[in-house]
């Protein structure tokens, strides 16, 4: 009968050693799993986001009508177009709308969130009311606005005329149309930041506020010294996403003012749209899109950096 003999020093047990590939695979198994899961969405992202951006930048250096014929290289000519009227005004309008809407909307959203955080009867309904414009179609809301400000037969002018006042032709006044665009955009966009600020406020430990009250801190002092610092991460998020949204103002202008009067409400996205689909000038349109992208990049980075510097 054969028996197993104990291994001797001269013949140690030889374990099955995996090959190099198997070792590498084992060492990086978590990363491999992650890549397998990520690859489909990465492919989708590359095809529908990265490649179009690269193509956009490439086309911005060409003259191309988008209808036929191949793009023709023209260098920086399309970018130089943005130095000629009315493009500088359009850039200025975009910046003006973006900064104004962002600042007013953020401040308003903060104070609305503070109020909605109070224990009020029916606050659930108030919260829904503030968010409804964000969910409503921009086209429907724009139609409402045009009914209100229509120069003939509009609600506002009907009221003015019933009071014996002459009608106001809002559509030929740059100041009025800018105000309308800003109010419309804020009305439509304030719901999102309100929800975000509300969520952040509700995450603040109420004992912190109570302790401050006990120490004699008033309402405004508590907001300044407790609420705002604790809300900082959410504020950064709201500002960064708000900048991106505010610069991309389009529906309000396209549906209400059409860029008028005298291009005083014309913004980058509406002009990019017109350059592409009306003027058949894809070179200038893509140059505009590239400029917008750079502006957004710089603005977002500036906000992030300044907030971090204040923290540090």
């Amino acid at each position, binding site marked *: 009968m054969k028996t197993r003999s104990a291994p001797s020093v001269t013949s140690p047990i030889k374990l099955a050693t995996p090959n190099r590939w198997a070792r590498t695979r084992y060492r990086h198994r978590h990363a491999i799993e992650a890549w397998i899961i990520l690859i489909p969405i990465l492919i989708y992202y590359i095809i529908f986001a990265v490649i179009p951006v690269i193509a956009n930048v490439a086309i911005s250096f060409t003259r191309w009508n988008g*209808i036929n014929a191949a793009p023709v290289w023209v260098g920086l000519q399309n970018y130089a177009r943005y130095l000629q009227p*009315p493009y500088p005004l359009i850039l200025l309008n975009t910046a003006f709308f973006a900064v104004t809407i962002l600042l007013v909307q953020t401040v308003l959203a903060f104070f609305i969130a503070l109020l909605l955080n109070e224990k009020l009867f029916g606050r659930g309904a108030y919260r829904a009311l503030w968010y409804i414009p964000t969910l409503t179609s921009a086209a429907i809301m724009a139609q409402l606005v045009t009914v209100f400000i229509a120069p003939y037969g509009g609600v506002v002018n009907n009221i003015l005329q019933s009071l014996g006042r002459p009608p106001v032709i809002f559509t030929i006044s740059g100041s009025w149309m800018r105000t309308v665009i800003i109010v419309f955009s804020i009305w439509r966009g304030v719901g999102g930041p309100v929800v975000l600020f509300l969520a952040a406020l509700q995450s603040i430990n109420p004992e912190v506020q109570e302790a401050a009250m006990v120490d004699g801190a008033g309402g405004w002092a508590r907001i300044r010294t407790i609420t705002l610092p604790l809300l900082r991460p959410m504020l950064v998020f709201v500002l960064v996403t708000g900048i991106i949204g505010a610069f991309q103002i389009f529906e309000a202008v396209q549906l209400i003012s059409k860029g*008028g009067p005298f291009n005083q409400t014309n913004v980058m996205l509406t002009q990019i749209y*017109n350059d592409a*689909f009306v*003027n058949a000038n894809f070179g200038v349109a893509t140059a505009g899109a590239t400029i917008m992208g750079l502006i957004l990049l710089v603005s977002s980075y500036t906000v992030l950096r300044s907030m971090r510097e204040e923290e540090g």
Partner: protein
Amino acid sequence: MMSTPRRWFKLFAAGTLVSMLFAACGAVPASPSSSSATTAPVDVATTEPVDAGSTTQEPITLTIWAEGSLVPVLDGSAVTTSKLREMAKDQFEKEHPGVTVVLEDHGWDEVLRQNLTNALLGGTAPDVIVGENFFQQYAALDALIPLDDRLFDIKENLIPGTYQAAVYNGKIYGLAAMTGVFGFERNCEVIQDAGLNCDNPPQTWDDLLQQAKTITDKGAGNYYGYTLQGPVGFSVGGIFRVAVYLAQADASLCKDDCKEPFFDNPKAVPVLKFLRELNKSTPPGLTFNADEAQVYTQLFQNKSAYQIAGSWHTNWAKENKCPDCRYSPVPTPKDGHPASVIVGNVIYAVLKESKHPDLAAEWITFLQRDAFQDLIYPTVGRLPATRSALTKLKPNVSEADQAFIDVMLNSEDLQVLPQWQKNPQLIWTAYNDMLTKLFTTDTPVEQLMDEAQKAAIAATQ
């Protein structure tokens, strides 16, 4: 060490993701008729079997972007069609066995332009396109096929103004299937209420100014002398009507074979001064109303007395129960002459990308036949585009419509709006900005025209 069930799960997940990826990459591309339509086409292309008697020819689908009256409408589960469409599609298919005509509605104006650009970029462009005012631009970009060598038999029957908008460098790139022209409309109830005689419409600009002022004064805010559609963005609705008066004064909006704007044309000075005066007799604010329908229906509602009217206004007035609307030629200036502008033109053209250019061109000439043209007015209330159809129609319509047909048949000066080949949006914005300042300020007309011309020239650079 990884447990066996967990390993099998991960392999399964990875395999599922990879197969989904391959499935997505291998998906059959959407059919041209559904990829870019804003309105889903109702007519699903069902390829008919090749006629047994024909040669071995592959079945052909001819895709045509058509104006709404040729496209069937879904009403619940029923499909409503028109005699016009039946005649056009069925007859053409009968004459071309093996060919299936697919008619699609992709909107009009800005929506149509956007859909067309998307289709061209996406490689799903149709064989035949439809539109009103971008054909010269597309012809300049070499995107259309000229039709001149197919028109020998029918050219005499065509009215040049109706296809002028599709002429580029002397070649014809499109033909109108139906058309319209401007005339002058008056509301006799308002005119008589103001104490004027409606049987004698104004013949000259001075008559019109005087009557409009009288009616406005008598109206005391209840009605006004004139309806003027004014400037909105880069829309050309108001500019079309202004162009009628400019045409009467030979004040062209363009020069150099209409390739360059001529907004500082000295001949336009009296026209713009006339319009500035005329605007004072319009309902306050109406001139700047963006809703074209609301602007023109004010006359039907007894809010104004006179307006420039498209040939479709006769039916429109009836639908809106205008108490007593009548029609006449547009008043002319002292040193001017009668003229009008083609409007509501539905032009069809063949794209160079068409897979069946000959067949597509045949479709366009097919629409010029009397059998099709004779159905236009009774079916959709628009004017046919050929002499023979208009001549046959004239005795069978109202006096109002006869006035418009007279303009179409007899006018020596039927014009079209210029089609800018570069940056039309910026150029028309410059003109509309000028009109806005014309109606709201007292800035000298010559100065406004100079500013508009500078802005327009800058846009062409």
